[in-house]
């Protein structure tokens, strides 16, 4: 569903070449939760931006649903949902209004009850549906972000440090939602600093360093302590 083939990105500010991603190869199948670990600047966000088409690769290919993102930008974007570290929506609109707007943009038109259903499924309590998003906590906004992905029926989720700054309860709820989405067949690529969350929720883990994927692991084979040890040795 999600595939990087020799995916490379270089920035050239002031005629200097700075490699951000170097010949990345990875594959995320439906039902997979692929967690990318690595320090700041390792290339995690660049990878997500390349799959979203916000950046153009210097070489290599980013494929979504078998389509090259560069050549089929709008088609690939229809298949995926994106959740950044901080979901900033329109603060003057309610959660319901935000969801209606974003799902309509994606071409889905739901009744108010259906939209409320998505918000509830994403874990947002009913009393908050009609409150302005400006009053929401970060965790509540993340839930609206998840609802947007649900309403879009996205087959691919690209998550950029989504649990950063969430309280443990909210982070746990978030992990539950991810597992449910994964069980429904979504392919999830998540960039994170949270080793323990990655171990807990991920099916695959990739450790990145200086734009390279230096380690690939499958979670059932290792404990959180082992993952931490590998991570510290690798980065």
């Amino acid at each position: 569903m999600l595939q990087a083939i020799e995916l490379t990105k270089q920035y050239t500010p002031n005629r200097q070449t700075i490699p951000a991603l170097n010949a990345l190869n990875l594959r995320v199948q439906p039902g997979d939760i692929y967690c990318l670990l690595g320090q700041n600047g390792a290339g995690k966000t660049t990878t997500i931006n390349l799959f979203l088409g916000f950046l153009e690769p210097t070489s290599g290919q980013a494929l979504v649903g078998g389509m090259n993102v560069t050549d089929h930008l709008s088609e690939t974007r229809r298949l995926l949902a994106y959740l950044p570290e901080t979901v900033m929506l329109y603060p003057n609109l309610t959660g319901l209004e935000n969801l209606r707007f974003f799902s309509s943009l994606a071409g889905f038109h739901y009744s108010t009850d259906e939209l409320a259903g998505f918000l509830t499924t994403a874990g947002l309590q009913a009393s908050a549906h009609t409150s302005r998003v400006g009053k929401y906590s970060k965790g509540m906004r993340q839930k609206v972000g998840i609802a947007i992905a649900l309403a879009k029926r996205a087959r691919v989720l690209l998550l950029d440090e989504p649990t950063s700054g969430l309280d443990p309860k909210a982070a746990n709820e978030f992990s539950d939602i991810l597992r449910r989405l994964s069980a429904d067949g979504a392919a999830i690529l998540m960039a994170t600093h949270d080793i323990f969350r990655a171990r807990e929720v991920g099916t695959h883990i990739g450790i990145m360093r200086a734009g390279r994927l230096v380690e690939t692991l499958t979670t059932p084979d290792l404990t959180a302590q082992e993952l931490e040890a590998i991570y510290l040795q690798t980065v």
Partner: protein
Amino acid sequence: MKALRPERLIAQQVWHTALLNRAVVYLGLFVGLVVVYAVYTGWATFRKQNGLRTTYQQQARHDWLNNPDKHPHRMAHYGHFAFRPKPPLSMFDSGMESFLGSTLFLEAHKQNAVNFSEAGFSTGMLRFGEISLALVLQLLLPLLIFFLGFGSIASERETGTLKIVLSQGISWRQLIVGKSLGLIRLMLTLFIPIMLVAAVLWLTGQAGVVSADQVVRFGLLALAYGLYLSMCCVGAVLVSAVSASANVALVRLIGLWLMFTIVLPRASQALGSALFAAPSKVAFFDRIQDDVLKQGDSHNPNDPHYRALKDSLLAVYRIDSVEQLPFNYSGFIMAEGEKISATLYNRHYDELLAIYDRQNQFSRAMAFLNPFMAIKNLSMALSGTDYASFVDFGRQAEQYRYDLAQTMNELQIRSISNRKPGPADKPAVIDRKHWEDVPEFRYTALDVGPVLACQTISLLAFLFWGLALVYLIRKLSKTLRAV
């Protein structure tokens, strides 16, 4: 549920979120109050000024007709006043109305300048510009649009919302068009009521009787301003789209506003005057006087031109003194002098206008660099308050002056004895009924056709800016990045 195109959805969202913002509502109300003030003062000034001018034009006519029996040449010097009627749409755009004056004193032998401008009777504050509806639409509304639009895309880039929006599968083109449409809809929320109020007052100012020409002018004004403000909306969104942050977008837009409304208009005016220098008023009239003296001085009995004229008359009538002529010789000489001085004045005046026209053409051409100049010139022209309409008034008044002077000369030639009356003779006067031979002065404003023909450059500049914005939307849609 009915599916909306992404552009309309985005436009709706811009509209909806703006109305939920109290600052936007208060700002809109403030602009609304300024508009009400501008519309009211424009309407009140129009009513007052037009009433005064109509009254004084009638008074001048009344005074002319009520002169007693007189010598026609005294009547030629008694003269007449020409009042420029305030154009109905001057309540919308006062243009040069306040600076170029409205009243001309018309008399024999002399072309006087237009007097009694508002500026001449005001404090220096008028130099900063009156608050007309046109001023609000040209300056204030674009500023409001820039305030509403500076963050339209740049803010979303800063907060990361832009990435979520684009990841829904919409293109940059759809986003820019949608944001622009939303901003245009907000602008129309203010613009349409403004134009409706202006239309009502404009109709009441003319007692509900308007010509087709005036209706076309008003329609074109509304269309031109609608387009101009829509361009401001698209411009604001494009600047926001290319700016890394909302602050940068705001600074850029305010910079553009200052550049377009203050710096470039002043610079183009100064540059135009420097490139095509016009003579001073004193120099202009000195040159005419010099040429008149070269051509012939009607007051000098030894002037070669008039001596030759006199000799030819004596030869044709086979007489030896002008007193023997069957018509009034002085009237004949004055008619000739009037013809010469008017021809020379018109020639010099045409040359002066040609210089002003080159200056104005230069200023109009600057509209390709500055859309504000295009709407400013078009607005004044359609409102009948531009330089061309004042020149037209001057020309019609000068023609009236010339006809008046020559009618009096003709009456003198035909009806006044060639012999000087003695102390016991009846004075050399004619019946006062002859004053009716001079028709009342009525200024006929230019039709909208010639007005638009004069504004070809402004119209082309409008087209150019429209196409430029479409091109920019297409170009930037391919090159813009969310990160």
